[in-house]
């Protein structure tokens, strides 16, 4: 029988593919279902946020940082404001620090809910996603109560936060945490232990420890590969030194360390730890210190430069600022976790199937605005 002539098929996935989480584009070269090459093509959501940061005053740029990662904008606010405060030497009141960590951890939970829900949906289970969104709605209600917005908050300002906690807000958070700690086991019973779900994710796109470090992965993606590194603990900022929490790592409980399932389960575990942090914040909340915002006029940091990195839900988010002594930064550079996660897809997707590529994108939890900025 004559050899059947075959050729590679170039498949254009995105930028309007239903499961590329925003406007990502991948150019796949496939042999049937097997992927031979997967080239990420970024830039469809580029909004020149770094350049805008150089044209705005320091305070004026805060709302723009919401848009760096709109699934977790509190954490972007925090990273930028911490950087400016360090550059300008501004003291933040203790009450504001607590409010910041409260909203950031709530935001981390809501961001991880999107991540794990979307991962489940991308491998075909639709029901976990509304479950996750239902809880996210409750977090959005809480954040709306304190800052008036549900997605792009502009809550953390340079020198503090924009509004104080409303009366009874802390009790509402406590109530949320109490019920949410029951929801996590329910979510696990629904999907995490599901045989098909585990089979779809185990041993898919393994990122070994060295490779994760080489590609400078960060956040949950790094910890899933077994690297014990969390900025909240290892390079603490704000009030994190006072708080007790564990750093969940990937153990390869269903397959190999660093596979897609580890990246999923690490996020679920981190939500549990965030609940612990929230409880401690509420217990230690300084009710006797009413000051929630330092008196800050137009910020004019002395000439110099600063790089501050924080632990955002999608990995390290760092702001590099150069000040020339005016009210505007002369250089703003943002480092995000999704961008480095995007780079590794090209290597780990080779030899996978098309369905796996979707699972890889979802398990790395890349979000388009954070990649392009």
């Amino acid at each position, binding site marked *: 029988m004559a050899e059947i002539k075959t050729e590679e098929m170039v498949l254009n996935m995105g930028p309007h593919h239903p499961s590329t989480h925003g406007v990502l584009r991948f150019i796949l070269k496939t042999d049937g279902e097997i992927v031979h090459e997967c080239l990420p093509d970024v830039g469809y959501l580029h909004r020149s946020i770094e350049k805008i940061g150089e044209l705005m005053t320091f305070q004026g740029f805060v709302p723009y940082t919401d848009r760096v990662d709109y699934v977790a904008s509190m954490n972007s606010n925090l990273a930028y404001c911490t950087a400016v405060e360090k550059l300008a030497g501004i003291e933040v009141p203790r009450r504001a620090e607590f409010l910041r960590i409260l909203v950031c951890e709530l935001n981390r939970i809501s961001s991880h809910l999107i991540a794990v829900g979307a991962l489940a949906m991308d491998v*075909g289970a639709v029901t976990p996603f509304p479950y996750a969104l239902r809880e996210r709605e409750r977090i959005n209600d809480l954040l709306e109560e304190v800052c008036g917005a549900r997605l792009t908050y502009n809550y953390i300002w340079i020198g503090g936060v924009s509004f104080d906690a409303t009366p009874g807000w802390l009790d509402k958070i406590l109530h949320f945490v109490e019920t949410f700690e029951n929801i996590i086991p329910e979510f696990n019973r629904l999907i995490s232990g599901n045989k098909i779900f585990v089979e779809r994710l185990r041993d898919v796109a393994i990122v070994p420890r060295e490779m994760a470090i080489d590609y400078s992965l960060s956040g949950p993606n790094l910890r899933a590969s077994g690297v014990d590194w969390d900025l909240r603990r290892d390079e603490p900022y704000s009030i994190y030194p006072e708080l007790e929490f564990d750093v969940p790592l990937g153990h390869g409980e269903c397959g190999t360390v660093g596979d897609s399932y580890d990246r999923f389960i690490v996020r679920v575990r981190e939500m549990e730890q965030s609940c612990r942090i929230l409880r401690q914040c509420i217990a230690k909340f300084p009710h006797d210190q009413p000051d929630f915002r330092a008196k800050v006029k137009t910020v004019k940091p002395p000439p110099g430069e600063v790089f501050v990195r924080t632990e955002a839900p999608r990995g390290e988010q760092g702001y590099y600022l150069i000040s020339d002594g005016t009210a505007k930064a002369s250089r703003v550079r943002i480092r995000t976790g999704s961008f480095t996660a995007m780079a590794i897809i090209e290597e780990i997707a080779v030899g996978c199937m098309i369905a796996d590529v979707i699972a890889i994108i979802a398990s790395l939890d890349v979000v388009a605005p954070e990649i392009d900025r």
Partner: protein
Amino acid sequence: MKPLLDSLIARFGITDPGLTLGVYATGMVVFCAIVLMGFVAPAAGIISFIERRIAARMQSRVGPNRVGPQGVIQWVADGLKCLLKEDLIPTEADHLLFRIAPYLVFIGMFGAFVVIPFGSSLVIADLDVGLFYLLGITSLVSVGLIMAGWASNNKWSLLGGMRAAAQIVSYEIPAGLSLLTVILFAGTMSVQGVIRSQGWAPHTWLMFQNPFLFASYFIFFTAALAEGNRTPFDIPEAESELVAGYNTEYSGMRFALFFLAEWANLYIIGAVSAAVFMGGWQLPPGVPDAVRPVAELLLFLGKSSIGVFLAIWVRWTFPRLRVDQMMEVCWKYLIPISFANVVGTAVWMVFLPKGQLPASAASFVMVALAAFLVVLFVRRVRMNLRESDMPIHLNPFV
């Protein structure tokens, strides 16, 4: 049917034998069309509505509740919307095949309704080879799907079409083998014959006759899910992977035809498993003759809704398998097991002949076992409810 046609022939004074035959043939075709269209299309529509509401309840949503009371005519609105949409055919598509494909899918699904018995006399055609016909006519669907995938001239569609073809052809084997055990046991291929070989009580149902038939039921159900492209086997139209698979380029009524066929197929899964494994329309002896046809119809619809609900439940619970895993399930597990079932049933029939004490005792044991499984399941659900500590809303009307 025949008396009506006879009176028509008498009124118009038709005497020519050829013409008489023509009237009969036309009459039957019109009758079939009315029954099929009048039952199948609304059934598919209503099932789509029910599925959306069940899915909504499972996902703590509300679901469609705006069009009509509780949204019950949502499916009419959806159908009308699809009719009014622009009929798009891509320029580079193969126009002829692109148009034929939905009709083939449609014919494959709707043709199956010919042999579905809704009652002892309520069946369009009780074919001698009913089960065989069922397997044959539903194969048309795979032709339609691969045609749709190819003709669209879209790589995602092509992948979807190829996946559909591979999947449906593979899963026809376990489905056919499972029906073969039934044919072996009932001694007939006619669907009505299979139902008549069963009784009204559960221990007389084919499903509970021996362990192999019990296993066959689940294999048939799984394979039928795969043939109907339902989760966890919705690989050909996997919306998160292949955009929409073979129907990516379809819009308007052609798109609606695919979905009509999908929901009609959902009903076929339920109806065939009810007829073949669960005693179909068999009523207890005490029912008066006057209400018998209606009671049979209601019983059959009730039994087939079990399968429909199971399929919906599975769809909104499970993730999707990967292509290689889907093939593995079929060729490594389902096909060997269903071969074993065929052999096992044959051996069982030799050593434990039908109607004798050991066989009847075995069927009672099987029923008890099934009841035990149900009890276990209910306990498990109660435990989950207790642990999650969430308020339960059982009222279906939101």
